[in-house]
């Protein structure tokens, strides 16, 4: 402790001689970034706050999105993200548990899986979209149709299930990384204590490790959901619709989506200025949704990290 203090004192003095320019320059950069964030939030809030109302949230769009609300887009986004979560979280958590609890860190296979996860996170989202078309729709979907429906079109077309599975692949790395971080935070003694008491490896994982890893899995899931709710590129061709007169009920239905609705209103609308109020309001709803999710995840993660340090 005393060492740390004796190091700090001279540098405090130096702050007024040599360190000022650099600390101002770097501090200014932080301010600029935060200012940009604030500007975006303010612009969106200013433009959208007047239009968001209960009626806006609960009715369907009319006149090509110029009037009416966004209920089908909210419904579609939630439905989509729900299927995605059911697909991504168990697989992601299982992969993380395998990587951290079973696999040997230096084994070739482990390294391969890790590289694959890291690279999966870097694949452009539009390429996921292409993959969704090439694999899910044209291979699996068409395969199901030929095998069970005599070739008539049910699964071999854009559908909410294919969009959700495409997103699940995209968000898999998020879940894996967050779960692994939580697993790393669990003290070795807990594992060894459990094993020493005669528990099997699986019992240790199921009753000691997993309960403690729940916050991490939760963080990963929330981040994945927030990412899934905001990504538009992968769902462009795998299931999102400009406008649907009904709410999706079956996995093969198409769906409306908040992000896609923003894209459509901003770029495909014949009169963008007329669409602006509803456009701003949709952006605001989307942003509030993803921000609530992100902030929740950040808070949970901060707690996990605090435990890791303590």
């Amino acid at each position: 402790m005393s060492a740390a203090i004796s190091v700090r004192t001279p540098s405090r003095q130096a702050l007024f001689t040599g360190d000022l320019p650099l600390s101002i320059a770097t501090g200014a950069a932080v301010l600029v970034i935060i200012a940009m964030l604030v500007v975006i939030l303010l612009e969106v809030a200013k433009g959208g706050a007047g239009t968001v109302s209960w009626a806006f949230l609960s009715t369907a769009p009319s006149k090509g999105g110029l009037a009416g609300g966004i209920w089908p887009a909210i419904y579609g986004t939630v439905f989509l993200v729900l299927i995605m979560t059911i697909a991504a979280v168990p697989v992601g958590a299982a992969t993380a548990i395998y990587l951290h609890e079973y696999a040997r860190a230096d084994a070739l296979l482990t390294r391969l899986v890790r590289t694959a996860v890291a690279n999966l996170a870097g694949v452009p989202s539009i390429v996921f979209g292409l993959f969704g078309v090439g694999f899910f729709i044209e291979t699996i979907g068409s395969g199901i149709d030929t095998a069970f429906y005599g070739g008539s079109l049910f699964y071999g077309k854009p559908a909410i299930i294919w969009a959700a599975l495409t997103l699940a692949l995209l968000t898999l790395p998020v879940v894996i990384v967050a779960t692994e971080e939580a697993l790393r935070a669990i003290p070795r003694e807990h594992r060894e204590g459990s094993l020493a008491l005669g528990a099997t490896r699986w019992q240790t994982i199921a009753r000691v490790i997993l309960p403690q890893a729940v916050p991490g899995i939760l963080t990963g899931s929330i981040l994945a959901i927030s990412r899934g709710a905001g990504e538009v590129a992968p769902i462009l061709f795998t299931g999102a619709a400009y406008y649907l007169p009904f709410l999706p009920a079956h996995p093969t239905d198409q769906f409306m989506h908040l992000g896609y609705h923003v894209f459509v209103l901003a770029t495909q609308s014949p009169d963008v200025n007329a669409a602006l109020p509803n456009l701003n309001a949709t952006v605001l709803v989307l942003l509030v949704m993803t921000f609530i999710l992100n902030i929740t995840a950040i808070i949970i993660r901060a707690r996990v990290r605090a435990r890791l340090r303590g």
Partner: protein
Amino acid sequence: MIAILSIILIFLFVGRKALPVFTSERVRQTASVREFFTHNGETPQGEPTYIWQPVSEHPKYSFIPLIIGTLKATIVAMLVSVPLALLAALYTTEFAPRRLREYIKPTIELLAGIPSVVLGFFALVVLATWLQRVFRFEMRLNAVVAGCALGLAIIPVVYTVAEDTLTAVPRALREASLALGATRSQTLLRVILPAALPGVFAGIVLGFGRAIGETMVVLMASGNASIVSGNLADSIRTMTASIAAELAEVVYGSAHYHTLFAIGALLFVITFIINFFGDIIVGRINTRMRGTAQ
């Protein structure tokens, strides 16, 4: 397992759809790999031009305008984001009071939580107007507008990796330098930064990969005109935006369809290589830092 499998599957299935540009005689008649990377037209003055014009009587498929468009947007994005992100990372690790540090990081991470379609919207509706007023652009949507919005998207990527490496620089190095009488700035520039340089570089590389692959921002804010020029004030059309804009209307199995998958495969390969090297650098640093810390 599934992670490896999905990487392989993605490569296989995007690759398979792209394959006809090499193999199918029919596709190659209208879109050949040679055409993708060479000039396919001439100006009245007889100079070679590169044209991406997939929907016309004589479709032209040169990737060059798209690659140039992608590079222009990416370069602007890097110019905007790298200095800001690095300086901010330095402030967070070196100068910020401890309490403040705990708030700066999550706030910048929050930027990563903004969906790219929202950034695209912001660039299209707000930023484009502002920038046009300041720089008097002829075209409202251009490489600068798209690049600035793209920069916002990759600031958190560069920042996070750089901040992680800077934090990982062993305390002993820092304290030794301070104990020898160096100021914080001297320590930072001569000791910490050199030690963390590979990590900072990795952050830039990963940010670059992200910028190349980002779709919605450039689709909405770049103008989507495939112009070959060195002028940043011209509209651009990027590789990602071309796929996004054209795949929905394309005829299944046509030359155009397979060409779009070929762009996808090319993007996949480029980002795969970039990420691969980025990760190798990050991995090395982690091992090295752990080595020196003990």
